[in-house]
C-alpha cells in the first residue's frame, strides 16, 4: 500500500533490513505519522494547560453556579488550598505569589496550538478513515455483551493479548472517542464562555450553560475528567508494556502481529 510497494527501495535498504531485528520495509506503522505528531503536540499542550489552569485557579479557588460569584457570595464548593490573593479567605496564614500573568499567556497560547492540532487531526482523521478504521467499534463489538465482556476483562486486570498491540480494544475506543468528541469540545466551549469578547459575539455560548460561573465550574470538572483520563491512559500504557507502546507512539514501529509481544509478556 505504502511507498515500499510502489517505489523501488534503494540498495541500502536491503543491507539495513538484513541486519535489523524487524524488517522495517515490510511492516506498516502501528500509528500513522499524523497520529503520532498530533498525539505528542496535544500531550505537551495539555500539560501546559493543566499547569497554567491550576495556577489561575489558585487566585480564586472558589466555585459558584449561575452568572456571578465572589468572596462576598456563597460558594458551590471551594478547594482546600491556599490562594495567591489576600482577599480570598482560605484559612491559611499566607498568600502565594501571583502567577496569573504568564499563566494566562501560556494557557491561551497552548489552547491555540491544541485547537489547531485537534482540527488537523479531526479533518485528516475523517478524510483518511482513521476514525472508522481505528476508533469506531467494529460491528461485532457493538453490543451490550461485548461491552460487558470488555469491562470484565479490564476489571480482572487481564493483560492485553498480542492482537491489542495492533488494534484498540472496545473500552479504549470508546474512551478515546469520548475524549476527542465530548471532553475536548466541552472544555473549549466552556473556556470560550468565560471570554467577555466571545460571549459578546455569541451570547448563547454562556447563557446555554447557565451563566459565566457555571461555565467556569463545568470547565473545572471537565479538566478534572481529562486529568483522570490521563492517569488511567498512562497507567494502561504502563500495564500493557511501557517500552513497546511508547516506541509505537514515537517511532510508529511495533513488533509484527505474528511475533509474540515480548515486552508485554
Amino acid at each position: 500500500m505504502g511507498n515500499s510497494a510502489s517505489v523501488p527501495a534503494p540498495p541500502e535498504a536491503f543491507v539495513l533490513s538484513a541486519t535489523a531485528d524487524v524488517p522495517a520495509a515490510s511492516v506498516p506503522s502501528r500509528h500513522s505519522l499524523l497520529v503520532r505528531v498530533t498525539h505528542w503536540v496535544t500531550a505537551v499542550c495539555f500539560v501546559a494547560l493543566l499547569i497554567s489552569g491550576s495556577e489561575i485557579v489558585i487566585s480564586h479557588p472558589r466555585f459558584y453556579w449561575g452568572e456571578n460569584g465572589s468572596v462576598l457570595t456563597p460558594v458551590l464548593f471551594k478547594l482546600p488550598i491556599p490562594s495567591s490573593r489576600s482577599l480570598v479567605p482560605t484559612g491559611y496564614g499566607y498568600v502565594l505569589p501571583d502567577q496569573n500573568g504568564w499563566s494566562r499567556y501560556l494557557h491561551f497560547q497552548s489552547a491555540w496550538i491544541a485547537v489547531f492540532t485537534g482540527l488537523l487531526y479531526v479533518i485528516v482523521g475523517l478524510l483518511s478513515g482513521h476514525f472508522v478504521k481505528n476508533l469506531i467499534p467494529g460491528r461485532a463489538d457493538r453490543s451490550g455483551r461485548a461491552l460487558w465482556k470488555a469491562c470484565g476483562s479490564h476489571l480482572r486486570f487481564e493483560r492485553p493479548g498480542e492482537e491489542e498491540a495492533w488494534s484498540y480494544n472496545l473500552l479504549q475506543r470508546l474512551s478515546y472517542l469520548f475524549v476527542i468528541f465530548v471532553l475536548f469540545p466541552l472544555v473549549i466551549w466552556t473556556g470560550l464562555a468565560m471570554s467577555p469578547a466571545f460571549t459578546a459575539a455569541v451570547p448563547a455560548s454562556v447563557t446555554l450553560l447557565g451563566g459565566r460561573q457555571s461555565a467556569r465550574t463545568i470547565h473545572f470538572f471537565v479538566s478534572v475528567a481529562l486529568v483522570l483520563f490521563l492517569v488511567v491512559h498512562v497507567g494502561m500504557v504502563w500495564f500493557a508494556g511501557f517500552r513497546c507502546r511508547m516506541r509505537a507512539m514515537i517511532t510508529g514501529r511495533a513488533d509484527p502481529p505474528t511475533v509474540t509481544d515480548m515486552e508485554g509478556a
Partner: protein
Amino acid sequence: MSDLSRRKLIKGGLAAAAGVAGVGVAATIAKSYGLIPPDHGGLWGAGETLNYASYKLLTRHSMAREFARREISKRPLENEMAPPNDAFQKLQAGGFADWRLTIDGMVARPGAFSLDQLKGYPSRSQITQLACEEGWSYVAEWTGVPLSHVLEVVGVQPEAKYVVYFSIDPYWWDSIDMGDALHPQTYLAYGMNGGELSVGNGGPLRMRVPRQLGYKSVKFVTHLTVTDDLKKFGKGLGSASPEGGYAWYAGI
C-alpha cells in the same frame, strides 16, 4: 545522496520557504489591518496576537451582554487596591470638585474637564458584568458618558489609533484601540447602581470597557492621551499590565 532523498530535500526546502513567505505575508496583512497587539513580541506573542486578531476580525462590532435590572448583584465586590495616595486624598477632601480629566495628544481641542462638565454631557447606563481575570464576577448598572462623546468634543485626528488612559495611581495606566474607544458601551463611568461611583469601585471616575476583563476598567482616571503609537508610553507594550506580566488584550 540518492535521487529520492534529494527530491525530498528539495520538496522540504520549498515547503519551508513557502511557509516562511506565508507567515511573512500574513504578518504584513495583519499589521496593515491593525491586528497586531503592542505586546506581540517575546515568548507569548503568538497566542496574544491570535487572541487580539480573532477579536478584531470576528467580534469587533458585537455588544457586551446586558442584563435585566433584577440580575444586578446585591453585593458588588470592591476589589483590593493600594490605599489612595496623597493627591487623591486631597481631592477627596474637597468632594472631588477639583478632579480634572485632562485630554491631550492627537486631538483638535485638548482640555481639562471637571466631573460636572462630564455629567453635563448625555448620560448613558448599561447593566453589564464585570469579570476579573481571577475568576469572580458581578453584574452592576454603570452610568457615565460614552467615551466616544468626549472624543467627539475634543476632536480626534483621523490618524489616531489608540486612547491611553491614566489613573491617579501612577502605576496604573492602560490603553484601548480606537475601535474599543468608540464602541457605544465604553464609558467614562461616574455612577453605579443608581448612586455615585464609590471610591472602592473606582470613583469618582472609572473607565468602563465591558468587553474586556476588569483590569482594563482602570479606576480613578485623570488623564487621556490620544495617539497613533503606543511605543511612546512606558516600556512600549501598551499598558502597565504587560510590564507586570499580564496581557494587554483582556477580552479573554
